[in-house]
């Protein structure tokens, strides 16, 4: 690096530091303002978590409804298999988000909302596992299929 470039970089950086420092000094947050901003963010976080929980619960209800529509055709089964993969991917996304909430959880902020969100995430896992059972594993178990036939004759 040439001396001229170095000097220019030092000057630019110094200017940036001066600008940020000056700006922050003018807008210095008081302790009360920091607390206020933090408190303002809590209801926003609670709302976001409640909305995410509701979305997960609605999807689980829709999947429950799918299972009431009877035996799927081969082409429908292929789509169900894709849906299971989508749900599995979604679960890995939301569980990562839940883990990132750890520090907030430790502060006991939005405790109920985080708890409900986790239950809904667990429900998502449960529903794609159940879909695999319903459409792929249980129909492949002879005892299960035999019982379905016998019960339908009652």
């Amino acid at each position, binding site marked *: 690096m040439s001396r001229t470039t170095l000097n220019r970089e030092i000057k630019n950086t110094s200017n940036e530091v001066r600008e940020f420092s000056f700006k922050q000094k003018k807008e210095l947050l008081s302790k009360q303002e920091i607390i206020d901003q933090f408190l303002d963010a809590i209801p926003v976080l609670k709302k976001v978590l409640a909305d995410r929980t509701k979305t997960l619960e609605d999807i689980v209800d829709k999947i*429950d409804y799918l*299972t*009431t529509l009877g035996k799927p055709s081969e082409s429908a089964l292929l789509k169900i298999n894709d849906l299971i993969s989508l749900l599995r991917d979604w679960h890995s996304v939301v569980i990562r988000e839940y883990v990132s909430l750890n520090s907030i959880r430790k502060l006991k902020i939005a405790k109920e909302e985080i708890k409900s969100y986790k239950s809904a995430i667990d*429900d998502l896992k449960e529903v794609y596992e*159940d879909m695999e059972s*319903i459409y792929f594993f249980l129909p492949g178990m002879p005892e299960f299929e035999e019982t379905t036939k016998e019960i*339908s004759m009652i």
Partner: protein
Amino acid sequence: MDIFCLQEFKDEFYKLKSKKAYNNLTSEIIKYFFNKKAEDLSSGRYLNNNTITPYIKKRLKGSGGYRVYYLLIHKTGSIYLMFVHPKTGPMGAPNITNETKTLLYKKVFNCIRKEDLYKLSILDKKIVFNKN
């Protein structure tokens, strides 16, 4: 609707009821299952792809609540409670295995055939189990 249950359901019910964390189980079961028509009890997750005699897994009290497994036979207007487990708390479980689902399914068929079931009724806000 006539409500029956397997021994497994009765055993789990009493085990859970004895825990403070699950003291709402009786009221949840009464609220959902008693004095209902078949169509009121036909929602949930069908495990057997059968709409005439669905083997249903029902979520009671939402995501973190209970899971009740039962058979609904529209033709006879009867339901058969097979198993219950909580999702959370000291006796919480995430799910039951495919083998257990199959075992309960076979068991309920055999018990219907042999009439080896408990009939459920309510007395003073409590569930009473009477052997057939």
